[in-house]
Every structure is written in C-alpha cells, then in structure tokens.
C-alpha cells in the first residue's frame, strides 16, 4: 500500500487533485517505471515464463487502486509492494509445478532489498544506455542476442544457420551479456555525479 503522508510534512510531489491531470500523471508514472517494475519481477522469478503475466497483473492492480496513490515519490515503493504480492500469489498458484524456483526466504530477501532499486533512477536509466551499448556490439554478437531474445527465434536456429555448435554459442552469449552489463554499469557511473 502507498505510504500515508504525514500532515506535518510538506510534499511538493502530491498527485494532482484534478481527475484528468491525476490520470495523466498516473499513466506517466506507470509508463515511466514499467522497465524497473518488470526487472524487479524478473529478479524474484528468474527463468519463469510468467513474467509478462505477473507484470500485467501488477499493472492491473496498480490501475485499479490508482486513487490510493498520494504522491509521485511513493509510486515505485508502492508498485514494488504490489509486484511482490503478485509474485507470491503466482508462486502459490504454480507451487505444484516442477519448476525450479527460489525459496520463499530468498524471494523475501531480494524483495527486501528493494531500496537498492528504488533509491536511484538507474533502473530506468539503464534502459536508455543499453541502446548505446548494443551499438558497440559486432554484427554477429547482435545477431546472437537477437536470436536468443526474439520470440520465434532460437539459439538452435542460429546454430543451424551458422554451423556453430550450440555450446559455443551459449558461451558466447554469456560473454556478450557480461560485457553488456559492464558497459551499462560504466555508462551509468559516468552519468551519475
């Protein structure tokens, strides 16, 4: 739930009172923070095929309860709380599957670290610098990433097209993503004073 503002504390970022302005602000907030909410869900459900569904459920709850939001600065904390609840709800639903999952304790620990996500804008800023880092990859590296992440394509297809072995492609993919992470972190370090 969003934090209740104390009447003693001035909050310059209070949500607008006018319904139209309020709706516009809410849409801006939920749109602006979609990437970091999704990444937060990914971190709690690594490897799950249900990320999009849980994100959608989270968005729906945020949308339904949008009138509860008092201040813009509370949005991410609130969104993470909702996302965390939806992840746990999803885990309950699929607990009988054989899927490999983090323990409840681990999920709680990662979710409790939410301040690490929340206190900086790096979650969203990283989305922008990713494009710069992608532009530094070679054509083959970009192709490999594309085949891994594009729906309908697969590493197996890429292996057949290029004649490379699947295991060597997996190793290359690991290396490329490690380098992308390093690149994003370096860019962010330069951007943030």
């Amino acid at each position, binding site marked *: 739930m969003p934090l209740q503002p104390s009447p003693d504390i001035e909050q310059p970022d209070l949500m607008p009172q006018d319904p139209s302005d309020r709706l516009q602000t809410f849409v801006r907030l939920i749109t602006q923070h979609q990437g970091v909410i999704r990444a937060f869900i990914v971190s709690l459900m690594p490897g799950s095929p249900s990320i999009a569904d849980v994100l959608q459920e989270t968005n729906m709850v945020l949308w339904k309860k949008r009138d509860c939001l008092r201040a813009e600065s509370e949005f991410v904390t609130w969104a993470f709380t909702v996302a965390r609840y939806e992840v746990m709800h999803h885990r309950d639903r699929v607990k009988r599957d054989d899927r490999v999952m983090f323990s409840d304790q681990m999920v709680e620990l*990662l979710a409790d670290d939410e301040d690490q996500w929340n206190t900086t804008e790096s979650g969203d800023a990283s*989305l922008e610098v990713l494009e710069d880092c992608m532009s530094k990859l070679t054509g083959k590296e970009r192709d490999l990433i594309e085949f891994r992440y594009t*729906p309908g394509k697969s590493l197996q297809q890429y292996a057949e097209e290029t004649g490379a072995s699947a295991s060597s492609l997996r190793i290359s993919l690991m290396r490329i993503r490690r380098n992308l992470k390093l690149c994003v972190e370096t860019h962010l370090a330069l951007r943030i004073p």
Partner: protein
Amino acid sequence: MKQVELENRILELLDGQASAAQVLELEEILKADPEARSVYRSLSRLHSALCVRYEAAAEVQAVLPIAPFQSSQNEKPKRVLPWILAAAAAVAIAVLVLSKNSGGANSVPYQLSPGSVCQVTYPDGVKGPEGHFLVDGAYVELLGGNFECSLANGVHLVVEGPAEFTLANQDLVLLNQGNAWFDVPEVAKGFSVRTHEVDVVDLESEFGVLALSDAPDQIHVLRGSVIATTRIGTRSSEVLTAGQARVVNHDGSLKTLPPTPGRFQKALSGKIPYLHFGLDGIGVNGEIQVDGSMPGASSIKARLISEDSASHFIPGPVGQAISFSSGSGAWINTDWPGLSGKAPRSIAFWFKIDPGAQQTDTFPAAIAWGNPDNHFNRKWKIWFPRDPDNGQLRACISFGADRYYDPARLDDGSWHHLTAIYTGKTHEDGTPDCLLYLDGVLSKPEHRFGPDGPPVMRNVDTQTGGPGNGPLRIGYGIYAGLPTFQGSLDEIYIYQGVIDEKTIRSLSSNGHPSDGK
C-alpha cells in the same frame, strides 16, 4: 566463486536453464553476499531489458492492435520507443477494456453446459454486458463444466473446466489454464492462443491446447496447420500440421506427442460428467463396478477390501447396498485420484447408520480423497463424526481445516440421502462455499475449524495424485490405521460440477438422475 562464474550461473538461472542443485547453490551465495545480490540485480535488469527490447513490438501488435498512448509520448527519445510501447500496452489494456466494454463492441454470446460454474469479470470492476455475452477483455473463470462461444470473426471455441482465460480481443485468447478446442475459419487466419509456455498462431486450422497447472502445455492440430512458438528457454518454433501434437519441454523445445484428438470437447456436453458406484454386488475378485460419463470412468479400478466380501451386501434404496458394519471391517479402495484444486464437485449418496454406531474416538470417512494434513484445505471428505458436546452423530464436509456440519442427528437406523456440494467459490471471510442437502432439502450447515484451527492458507486446494495424497476411498480414511466406516451406503454419484436442485430431488427420491442415467 569467481565473478565470471557467478555471472554465468546467474545468467543460466535467468535463462531458465539452472538445475535445482544450481539454484540452491546460487541461493546460498546470494543470501550470504550483498555484493553477489548486487550483481544479480544488474543482470536481472539487463536480461529484462533485452527481453522487452526484442519482444515489445510483437507484444503490442499481438495484444493491442491500437496503442492509444503512442502519440502522447513524443517527448521521449526515439530509441526508447519499444519501452514506451510495452509500457503503454500493459497500461492501456485496462483503458482499452473500459472503452470497448462501454460501447459493447464485439459482444458475442456464450453458452455453458448444465451445472457449469463460470464467472466473467472485467478489469477495474467494469460491468460487462447483461446475460451470457462477452466483450474483449473478459476474464473467464470456468470452475467446472464446459464453455462454448463463437467469436465475431467466426472462431469457434469450446473450453473444458476448470479453466481460466482472457478474451484479449477477437484474435487472441490468453489461456492461463484449461483444455480448449478452437476451429478457425479462413477469414480469421492468424488467430492466436497464448499460454504461459507457448504461443499458437493459426494458419487456417482446427486445434486443441492444453494449458495445465501441473504439467507442460500441449498443442494438438486436428486440421490445417499452426505455428507453435515456446515462450520459455530456447523459444523454439515449429509449424505443426494435422495429426501432429507437441508438448513444451522444460528447456523450451517442442517434443513430439502421440495425437489424442478425442481429448477435446467440440460441443457442449448436455450433462455434468460423473462417476457412479451402484454398489449392487462385486466381481469374483472383489471388484466394484464403476460407470458414468466422466472420461475414463469405465477403466477406474475399485475393489472391496474385506475378508468376507459377500456378507456386506444388503437390500438398499435402489437394488443392493453395501454395509460396512457387518462382519469384519470393510472398505472400498480405488485408483481414481479424485477432483483436484478448487474444482467444483457434488457428491450424492444414500446412507444408513444405526443408533450407537461409530463410538470410536476417531471417526472414519464415508467418502474421501486428497491430502490428510488438517493444517490446510487439501482434502475432500464426507464423514459422520459425533458432536463432542452432545454425542450426536452429524454429517460433515471437511476440506482439512474448514468444515461444515449438518445440524440434523442422523444415527437413527433409517436410510437418508445426502448431497454435498462445493461450488468452487469462496466467501468474503475466506471460507469455501458449500451446500448440504439432506433428503433433498437444503440444510443450513454450521462452519467450524478443525482441531488445528484455521488453515495456513485459506484457499481450497485438494491435492491429488502425488505422494501422500490418497485416491478415492469409500468407507475409510485417507491414511492407514483408521477404523472403517460403521454404516451402509448406496448409489454414490460423484459429479464434476455443481448439480441443480432438480437433479438432487431426483437422486433423493428415485435414486438416479432425472434422465434415468
């Protein structure tokens, strides 16, 4: 662990490629080391960003033919447009639903089989059309029975409950769970079905999809062809033609299955599937006959466990009945796992209990299956315990922790008819919605918790098939060591849904459903 190795392990996990042992090992590292968790967060963000970068445009096209927020986001740099589209798609669905519902666009009728339990809701509490009509955005929760619908583009679908799905639009069904059949005409080519694990895109076809909560999803092509693309692991894609079936492998590949076209209902069934135990006699090896319309009914094995089988049959309300109290203890074992999860169910049967019977401290079940743990609602049991306050014997439905007691005293030595129904719904206070009919009359059962208090989790989740879960047993408990039921039973019907009062009246007066089956 070295940094590179740690990063590789994390990436394997994010790719869905890590084994249980690897997850456990990584979890220990992450718990102990905040720096490792920081690396984990960075890679999670990167992985998520890459997923969206390549999926966004397709997602928007598939889920949202129009993206009303695009024009309002022009101030954003062009290079992040896919992010804006993805975000807009996620948010705009609610808005789109609101606008479409209010106009009644693409309102299509649907039908339910008798006894079905179906809830149709829309996001944000928006009221849908009156009657059995759907519009885009409808979330359908089919707890039991069958659902049939023809969409505006001519796509015909039949969904077998329990199922959950969303009609995102006339070209896309999001099938969370269930067994669904689709017949797609030429004009609707490109119609898609999405489950948690696979996207199925029609190329003029008739196909079935099984989205299972406890097993990998399956695609069966009955006519024409489809493109199936997995949404996990390797994200394999394959064109499937008539007669081909695939199951989604754990690594995201598609594995060949023998086709089972008969597995899909292509029209509404006029009856709720049921099992029937007539209890009129036994075979030479103690077999009890099982029949009914539930798939596989005739292959269910049921056997009377007794040292002297023949002595247990007595005249009953309909033909013979079985008495578990005469001679040495007897009970019926079966290999049917029972109805699972929160599937609605109706159990109807005749019973007779003599005065003074069942004086033991532990009361056996008349009919039961599931998991015996009383800290949860993981079982389904109909039994006749004695009230600890006054010693009166009463009928009771037990889910484990949540229990419902009929108020009437029943150990009078006469035949009575009991119908116990779980509707699959939940009351606002978290208790399951149940109905009890005694001798065809609706009673007012009293809710109580079991000896261990409220359940750890309030939801009903009858567990079947796995270790520690008992199959259907009649006249006995779920686990060994209990005394056997001290009464008589006849004409047991187990329905996969909620039966109506007409059926209940027929069962309690004639001993069989009104259609004579």
